[in-house]
């Protein structure tokens, strides 16, 4: 079987960060160009959405039309308002500033779940605040008077990257990506209880190593309208080729689609029809896969 990955944009000057399908187009972050842009598939054009983004990673749209973004360079989640301003959320947990948010999702209550791994690239400015001694899944919520507060949800992660809420919001899928050769990269499923806490995880997919080195694990994932999971995983260094993995909504591995253009980083569907899957690559381009 051959798969047609069509390059629709790029290569850009910067690595690509978060992506988000919104109103007929694909919003994407150019991390080090500090820009957010939008690709319009109807005519192939690209328009500017935001400048001075402070190195933006994961993106998600809220019900009120605002977009939440992981600002890697500022170690915070920010909320991009429709009027062009950008608001901060809480950045301190138990008095300490958290790490570098990488990926996020918003639940039906408007709570913002994010992964908070360490980063080799320091934040902007003087390094006054050390990283947390742990790397967790966190959740931003508003307190009774409307101030943001942070809850720490995971106590058994060391390098959480991509995260995804199941459609029923009863499971949180987490890509746990330690770079330690004695541990595997894992796709985990955490049950979410009625109070919003995470239970004991189960491992859906474990990525080990081969004679070429460690499998890189999952960098980014999304779900289709049926709740099936699509995950960008691997890299060009290991024997098990970089691929888009497809899992059932329960996490059963269904197939692996080889990705031929360097390392796939993040993916998202164009709307609800599950036909076009957009994929960003480490070659700084955006690809489109048309599914049957």
């Amino acid at each position, binding site marked *: 079987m051959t798969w047609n990955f069509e390059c629709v944009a790029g290569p850009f000057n910067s690595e690509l960060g978060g992506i988000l399908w919104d109103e007929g187009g694909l919003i994407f972050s150019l991390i080090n160009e500090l820009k957010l842009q939008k690709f319009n598939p109807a005519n192939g054009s690209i328009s500017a959405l935001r400048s001075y983004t402070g190195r933006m990673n994961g993106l998600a749209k809220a019900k009120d039309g605002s977009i939440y973004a992981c600002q890697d360079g*500022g170690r915070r989640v920010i909320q991009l308002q429709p009027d062009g301003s*950008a608001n901060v959320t809480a950045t301190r947990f138990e008095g300490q500033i958290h790490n570098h948010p990488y990926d996020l999702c918003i639940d039906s209550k408007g709570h913002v779940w994010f992964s908070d791994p360490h980063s080799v690239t320091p934040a902007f400015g003087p390094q006054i605040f050390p990283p947390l001694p742990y790397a967790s899944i966190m959740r931003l919520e508003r307190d009774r008077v409307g101030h943001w507060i942070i809850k720490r949800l995971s106590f058994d992660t060391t390098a959480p990257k991509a995260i995804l809420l199941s459609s029923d919001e009863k499971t949180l899928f987490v890509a746990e990506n330690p770079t330690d050769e004695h541990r595997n990269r894992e796709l985990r499923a955490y049950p979410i209880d009625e109070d919003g806490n995470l239970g004991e995880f189960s491992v859906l997919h474990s990525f080990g190593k081969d004679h070429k080195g460690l499998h890189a694990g999952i960098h980014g994932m999304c779900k289709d309208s049926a709740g099936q999971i699509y995950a960008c995983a691997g890299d060009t260094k290991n024997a098990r080729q970089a691929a888009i993995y497809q899992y059932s909504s329960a996490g059963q591995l269904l197939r692996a689609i080889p990705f031929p253009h360097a390392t796939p980083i993040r993916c998202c569907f164009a709307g609800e029809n599950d036909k076009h899957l957009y994929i960003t690559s480490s070659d700084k381009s955006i690809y489109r896969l048309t599914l049957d």
Partner: protein
Amino acid sequence: MDIESYAPEFLDIIDSHPPLVNIAQGFTFAEGPVWDKRTNQLFFVDIIGSKVWKWKPGVGKETILNSSGHMNGMTFDHQGRLVVAGWCNRAILRFEKDGSISTIASHFEGKKFNSPNDIVVDSKGATYWTDSAGGLVIPGMVANDVQRYLDYQGVYRLSPDGKEVSLVIGDCTYPNGLAFSPDEKLLYVNDTLLAQIRVFDVKPDGSMGPGRVFHQLTGSEDGVADGMKVDSKGNVYCTGPGGVHVINPAGKLIGRMRIHEHCTNMAWGDDDWQSLYITTFNSIYRTRINIPGIETW
């Protein structure tokens, strides 16, 4: 305090073993020092702690403002009012005599400032400040609205009547400290990211001629171009790697004051203006030199 002398003239302005007294500590990012000659006390801020402080010899420190919006550089205007580079307030603020705080500038050409960093008032009463964008990204010290609207990190001037804001330098990378020469014919502006001090000829109308590089900072120790002041002989004192760098009017590094904390800014003070108050992230220090600095207001 340890000093490093690179030219004999350095020892004309500082003793070989000058004092270094830690006068206050317990801050996260002390900055904005300015000496009040009327009351013999030092005002300064803690940017991350979001407070404004005062310190008086023999009395100690006291908070004068909580939740300051991470105020940064401060000086006095000609009526003895504190004027402040508001950082996360994204504005220039003034402490009024009735205890209120007013905004005296917040936009340029309809766009909100980045995050005003440091500030100086000249003898005619014009206010100059740097508008770097760090207050929109740096962890622990950002505004509520972190969107940047201006495409440059400029140096601005507010006319003495308070009516007109003009962009006087538009080609900086990250402007930070600024200080006039004693005769106010020159304005020195440093740039943190370029580790550089530039000098500009001040025109009679308060605008600036083209800049030229005055000094490139050197050193591998902790510390960056941040606060900057000039003494009465025209020597330039700039925070940098390892402490405070002293540069003569020709642009040559003549010595360093070694301070084993990350220095952020300085202010001349005491009756003879021969004390140099130095802010670091965590502390306020005082040292003495043998010539006066430049009186504030």
